[in-house]
């Protein structure tokens, strides 16, 4: 819609006539295109809603005595300790100051760190769940989503040697660390895990000041 009109200039006794410029740009196709694009995006954009990670904590009953709590098998237990600066440690078994203390291993949140250890310990369940998921994706087995999640739950419970993870965080841990470690539980298809309070002996183990009452093994 551009027009440049140069007015004719009156010149005293001049024989020359001023030239008339007229530039006309037709913008209709561009506006058409913009209209189409806007309509397209108006109809196809879907806002991404935030997702939620479900977590269930065991009932906190102050009246439950220490000895009434169900005992976990020490040989299946993996304790994961999360601390500040994205530090994460783990040890197997139980940290009893009366016995020699287990080895505390420092690792990280990458896939070569904690995930490698978890996959090694949870191999049977992980493979079984992954096979089932792949079968459903390939179409070899057809089932509803709810059936699939029920079957995965059953698979997780079926392995009696699957690890039991106890997640403990100290004062310096960030919320992100907790979410990351619970995420790893989901990625590695861990069946049973719980977030529990950290014990003083474990705080000492992180600090490197833990002393075992048992005599050192020669």
């Amino acid at each position, binding site marked *: 819609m551009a027009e440049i009109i140069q007015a004719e200039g009156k010149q005293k006794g001049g024989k020359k006539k001023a030239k008339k410029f007229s530039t006309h740009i037709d913008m209709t196709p561009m506006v058409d295109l913009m209209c189409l694009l806007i309509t397209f995006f108006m109809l196809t954009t879907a806002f991404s809603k*935030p997702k939620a*990670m*479900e977590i*269930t904590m065991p009932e906190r009953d102050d009246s439950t005595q220490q000895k009434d709590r169900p005992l976990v098998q020490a040989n299946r237990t993996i304790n994961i300790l999360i601390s500040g600066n994205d530090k994460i440690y783990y040890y197997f078994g139980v940290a009893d100051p009366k016995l020699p203390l287990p080895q505390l291993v420092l690792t990280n949140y990458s896939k070569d760190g904690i995930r490698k250890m978890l*996959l090694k310990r949870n191999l049977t369940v992980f493979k079984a769940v992954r096979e089932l998921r792949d079968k459903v994706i390939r179409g070899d087995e057809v089932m509803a989503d709810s059936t699939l999640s029920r079957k995965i739950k059953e698979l997780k419970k079926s392995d009696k040697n699957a690890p039991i993870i106890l997640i403990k965080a100290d004062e310096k841990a960030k*919320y992100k660390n907790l*979410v990351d470690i619970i995420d790893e539980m989901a990625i590695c298809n861990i069946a049973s895990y719980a977030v529990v309070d950290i014990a003083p002996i474990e705080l000492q183990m992180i600090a490197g000041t833990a002393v075992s009452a048992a005599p050192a093994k020669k």
Partner: protein
Amino acid sequence: MTPMVDLFALLLTFFMLTTSFRPQEATIIDTPSSISEKVNPDKNVITILVGKDDKVYLNFDNGSDTSVLVRKEVLKKFAEQYNLKFSDKEIKFFTTGASFGMPADKIKAWLDTPDSKDREKFQTGIPMDSTDNQLNMWIRLIRVQSPNAEVAIKGDAEADFKTVKHVMDILQDNKVNKFNLTTNLTKDEAKLD
């Protein structure tokens, strides 16, 4: 061309007059990421926001029953507990679902401030220390009004775990054992090598 520009002007005026802004969140929160694909509930939910600075804010909706305004009822009961008086105008403003977080004595001042920029200054966080556990009171009153509401914890990735654990402890004291942690979706898969 002129009729089209007329039409655009009309559309623009229409949207300018009918748009209502979403109430501003009390604080900006950067949630951590996870592979969880479950959608965060947005109806009948109590949201507890934990900011980067470890301040705690609260948001809850008016419930699924349209005849009962849950926010109004909860504010009235809260006022009884802490000896506060709110005018009808202030109660009406409170029922528009904005997230808030301030000690009980500052609520009236927050509701009275007309300007949204000045209003943000009041959002200093809900106290939840053992001497003055206002968060506990809020949650207790909300659960009485809407017992089926789910609880979502929207925490900043850099918030201390300690604060979130404290919030979870307060929730467990109120017999809530299942939480939704709001996260962003990222895809991550374990690969066996």
